[in-house]
C-alpha cells in the first residue's frame, strides 16, 4: 500500500485521542452527595458487563473512525487488477525535453520539436497529485512544479540555441529522483537522441527507470557552418552536418556585402580569401542555402585589423633583432615609435625584455621587473634544448628550433608561459611585459637564423607584447556583441550554436540503451509506457464510507446502549 499524501499519516496519532480522553476524563470526576448510592451500586453491578462492553465498543469504534478518516485523507493506493485501477504509485519523475537547436529540424513537413513536445505533454499529463515532478530543458535546469505548471512550461517551450548535455543531464536527473522517498522513480528522455550527444555513460542508480523516446530510423539531411578560422587574409570554413548530405553553396558576407562564394559539404573545410581591410573591427557572416535545420545555416564572425605597432629597440637589443625590425618597418608591419620597446630593461609600456649579455646585470634586470610589478624573474642558466610553443599567436615555425643558452624564468603564473625549452618557461607574458629566456642572437639560439624569425618578431610586436583584441566565442543564437571601454571597442563576443548540433544522425538504439541505461518507446507508446509501477486504486472513498458507517455505529451504540 502506498499513499498520495503520506504526511497526512501523522494524523494517526490522533487515534490515541479517544483512549486519552477516556483516561483523562476518569481522573478527577466531580464528587456529589447522593443518598441512593445503594441503588446506584446495584444498578452498576447489574450492568457492569454491559457497560464494559459498551465502553470497549465505543473506544474501538471511535479509534477506528479516526483511523479511517486519517487514512482517507492520506489517499491510500492499493494494487488493483481491475481495469478501473488507473493510478500509479507516487513517482518522482524528471522529464528531459531536448529543445536544443537540432530539435528544430523539420521532418516530413513538421517540426521535430512539436512531436517531442506532444510526447512530453502526454507523459506529464498522466502524472498524479502524489508525484514529484521536474522538467529539464536544454539549459540543464531542473524545474520543480505541479503537473499543470510543467505542462504549461512544455507547451510554451521553443527550440533553444544551447546544446543539451544529454548524458550529464540524465545522470543528474537519475540522482535527483533517487533521493526522493517515493515508491517509483523515472527519468523520461524526450530527445532526438543525436549520436554526437551520447558520449560517456550514465550510471543509472538502482530503482530508477530511464525511459527514452526511440531514436529515428533515418537521419534528416543537414548542412551547417561549423568552425570558422581566420588567418592572414583568409577564412577557413568548416562545414558540418549529417554525413552524406550533398554539398550546398555557401556565401561569405562582410558588412552585408558578399565577398566570396563556395560549395561545401559536411565534413569538408572551405577556405576563402577575404579582401584587405583597413584597421578596425570587421563583422562578417557565412551563410548556407536554407535546409531542414535553419539554426545552423548562418554563422557570424568578427576580426580586428590592428594598425602596425610602433616599436623601438634599445642599443643592447642585438643586431639580429634590429635587422628584423628594420625589415618589418620596410614591409609596413611595424612603425617607429614607443608602443613596444625591445631591450634589456622593461619600459613604461608594452616591452619585450631580453636577458642581459653580462650575467652581472641580471640582478638589475630582476629588480627592474619587480619594480614594474612583474611576478617573473631570471634565475640560473638552464639547459639547452629545442623550443616548444604550446600554441597561440606565435608562428608554428619556431617549434623545434634549438636553444643553446638560456636563463631559467621563474614565476608562478603558468598561464603566462607562451613557449618552453625542456619543459621550462622560455617565453612568458606577464601584463604588458614579454620575457625571453635567451637573447635573440645565434650565440644563444638558432632562431635568428631560421625563416620564422621575422614572423616571430612580428608576432611579438603586433600581438604578444601589445596584446590581442579580446575575441570570445559563446554558445547562443548567432550574433556578435562588442565590448567597449569608453569610446573604444576592446573586444567582441561571437555567439554561435554548437557545431555538433548540425549532425542530425540519430544514435543507434543499442547505443542509447548502453549510454543512458534507458528503455525505449515509440512516440505513440511513450505515455502508456511511462509510470510503469503497478496500477493502483484510490480507496479513500471506501474509507470515507467506512468512516460514515463507523460514525453511524458509534452514534447507535452511544444512543441505544445506555
Amino acid at each position: 500500500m502506498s499513499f498520495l499524501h503520506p504526511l497526512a499519516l501523522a494524523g494517526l496519532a490522533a487515534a490515541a485521542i479517544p483512549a486519552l480522553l477516556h483516561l483523562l476524563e476518569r481522573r478527577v470526576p466531580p464528587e456529589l452527595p447522593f443518598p441512593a448510592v445503594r441503588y446506584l451500586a446495584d444498578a452498576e453491578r447489574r450492568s457492569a458487563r454491559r457497560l464494559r462492553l459498551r465502553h470497549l465498543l465505543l473506544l474501538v469504534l471511535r479509534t477506528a473512525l479516526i483511523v479511517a478518516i486519517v487514512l482517507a485523507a492520506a489517499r491510500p493506493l492499493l494494487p488493483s487488477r481491475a481495469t478501473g485501477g488507473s493510478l500509479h504509485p507516487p513517482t518522482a519523475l524528471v522529464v528531459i525535453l531536448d529543445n536544443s537547436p537540432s530539435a528544430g529540424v523539420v521532418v516530413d513537413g513538421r517540426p521535430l520539436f512539436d512531436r517531442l513536445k506532444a510526447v512530453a505533454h502526454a507523459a506529464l499529463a498522466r502524472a498524479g497529485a502524489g508525484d514529484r515532478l521536474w522538467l529539464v530543458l536544454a539549459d540543464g535546469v531542473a524545474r520543480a512544479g505541479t503537473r499543470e505548471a510543467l505542462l504549461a512550461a512544455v507547451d510554451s517551450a521553443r527550440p533553444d540555441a544551447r546544446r543539451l548535455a544529454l548524458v550529464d543531464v540524465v545522470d543528474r536527473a537519475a540522482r535527483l529522483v533517487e533521493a526522493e522517498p517515493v515508491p517509483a522513480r523515472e527519468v523520461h528522455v524526450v530527445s532526438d537522441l543525436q549520436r554526437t550527444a551520447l558520449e560517456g555513460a550514465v550510471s543509472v542508480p538502482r530503482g530508477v527507470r530511464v525511459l527514452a523516446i526511440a531514436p529515428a530510423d533515418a537521419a534528416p539531411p543537414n548542412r551547417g557552418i561549423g568552425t570558422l578560422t581566420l588567418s592572414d587574409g583568409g577564412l577557413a570554413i568548416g562545414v558540418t552536418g549529417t554525413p552524406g548530405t550533398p554539398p550546398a553553396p555557401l556565401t561569405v558576407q562582410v558588412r552585408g556585402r558578399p565577398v566570396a562564394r563556395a560549395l561545401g559539404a559536411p565534413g569538408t573545410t572551405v577556405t576563402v580569401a577575404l579582401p584587405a581591410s583597413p584597421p578596425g573591427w570587421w563583422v562578417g557572416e557565412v551563410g548556407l542555402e536554407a535546409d531542414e535545420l535553419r539554426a545552423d545555416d548562418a554563422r557570424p564572425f568578427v576580426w580586428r585589423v590592428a594598425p602596425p605597432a610602433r616599436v623601438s629597440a634599445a642599443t643592447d637589443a642585438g643586431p639580429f633583432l634590429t635587422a628584423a625590425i628594420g625589415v618589418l618597418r620596410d614591409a609596413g608591419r611595424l612603425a617607429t615609435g614607443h608602443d613596444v620597446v625591445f631591450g634589456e630593461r622593461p619600459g613604461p609600456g608594452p616591452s619585450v625584455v631580453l636577458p642581459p649579455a653580462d650575467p652581472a646585470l641580471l640582478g638589475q634586470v630582476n629588480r627592474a621587473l619587480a619594480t614594474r610589478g612583474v611576478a617573473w624573474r631570471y634565475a640560473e642558466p638552464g639547459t639547452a634544448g629545442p623550443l616548444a610553443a604550446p600554441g597561440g599567436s606565435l608562428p608554428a615555425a619556431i617549434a623545434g628550433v634549438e636553444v643553446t643558452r638560456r636563463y631559467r624564468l621563474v614565476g608562478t603564473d603558468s598561464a603566462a608561459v607562451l613557449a618552453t625549452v625542456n619543459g621550462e618557461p622560455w617565453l612568458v607574458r606577464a601584463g604588458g611585459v614579454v620575457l625571453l629566456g635567451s637573447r635573440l642572437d645565434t650565440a644563444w639560439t638558432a632562431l635568428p637564423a631560421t625563416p620564422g624569425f621575422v614572423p616571430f618578431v612580428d608576432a611579438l610586436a603586433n600581438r604578444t607584447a601589445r596584446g590581442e583584441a579580446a575575441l570570445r566565442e559563446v554558445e547562443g543564437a548567432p550574433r556578435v556583441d562588442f565590448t567597449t571601454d569608453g569610446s573604444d571597442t576592446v573586444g567582441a563576443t561571437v555567439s554561435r550554436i554548437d557545431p555538433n548540433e548540425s549532425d542530425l544522425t540519430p544514435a543507434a538504439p543499442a547505443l542509447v540503451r548502453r549510454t543512458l541505461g534507458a528503455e525505449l518507446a515509440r512516440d505513440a507508446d511513450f505515455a502508456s509506457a511511462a509510470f510503469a509501477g503497478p496500477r493502483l486504486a484510490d480507496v479513500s472513498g471506501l474509507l470515507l464510507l467506512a468512516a460514515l458507517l463507523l460514525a453511524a455505529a458509534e452514534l447507535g451504540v452511544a444512543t441505544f446502549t445506555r
Partner: protein
Amino acid sequence: MTVASPVPQRFDLLDPAEVSRLGGIEIVAEGVVEGFLSGLHRSPFRGFSVEFTEHRPYQPGDEPRYLDWKILARADRLFVKQFEQETNLRAMLLVDASRSMAWRGTPERLTKRAYADRLAAALALILLRQRDATGLVTFDEVVRQAIPARVKTGQWGRLVRGLLDTPDGRGTAAAAALRRLTSLLVRRGLVVLISDLLFDRDLALTALRYLRHRGHQVIVYHVMDPAEVELGGPPEVRFRDLESPASVVVRPRELARAYGETVRREIAAWRTTCRRHGIAYHHVTTDLPFGMALRLLT
C-alpha cells in the same frame, strides 16, 4: 355586570416547595388540611368503636339486636338504632430523620425531611381535628423525639415543635431504632412511617410486621426526591453516600436506565412485600402536592 369570584387557593394541590415558601410548618399544614378536608365528605380514617346517631323505623330483615327496646316498651313502635363509625383512634407518626432525608436534588425542591415534616404535620392536624390521639416519633440511629399520642389541646403544637426540634439527620436510620419504636407503641392504633426507606428492607419489614402483629394499622410513606428516581448529573461523577463511606463513580447518562429499573424494582418490592403483610405502602416524591399525598390514604 358580574364579577368573577376569586378561586379559593387549594394549598393541598400546589407544588410543595411553593407552598412551603408561604410560611412555617403550621401554616403550611393548616392550609393543606383546610384545602384537603374541603374536598372530603367523610373522615378518611376508620375507627374501632361505634357511636349512635339516629333511629329509623324497623323493616323486615333488620337485625333484631339493634331494636330499641326502650321505645318499644314506651311507644310500642319498632325502631332500630343506627351507628356511625367513630374516628377516635391512637395514631403515631414515625418520621425518619436520618442524614439521607436531609437531601434534595435541586435547591428549588424541599428536602425529603422537610417534605416528611410537613406531611406529618398535616396528618397530625387532620387526626387531631377528628379527636384522634396523635403522637410523634422521630428517629435516625436512635429515637430523637418521642411524643406520646394525646388528643388534648396544644398537642398539635407539641408535635410540630417535636418535628422542629429534631435536627437534620446525624446518622442512618437503623433497625435498632425501629425496634425501639415497637416498644413505644404499646396500645393498638395507627402507625404512619414516613421515610426514604434507605435501610435494610428485611430488618425494617421485621419491625413493621411486628407492629402489624401487635394489631396496629400500618401505613408507609416512601418519600423520594425526583432526582433519586431519574438519575442525572454531570457526564461523569463520583456519588458519595450520605450515610456511609461508600462512593461510586458513574456516568449518569449511561447508567440512568439501569438505575431507573433498579429503583422501580425496589419500589415494587416494597409495595409487594407490604401488601403481603397488610401494610399500606405509598410512594411519593417531594414534588407531589401534599393534598395528593394525603389523598392516597382515602
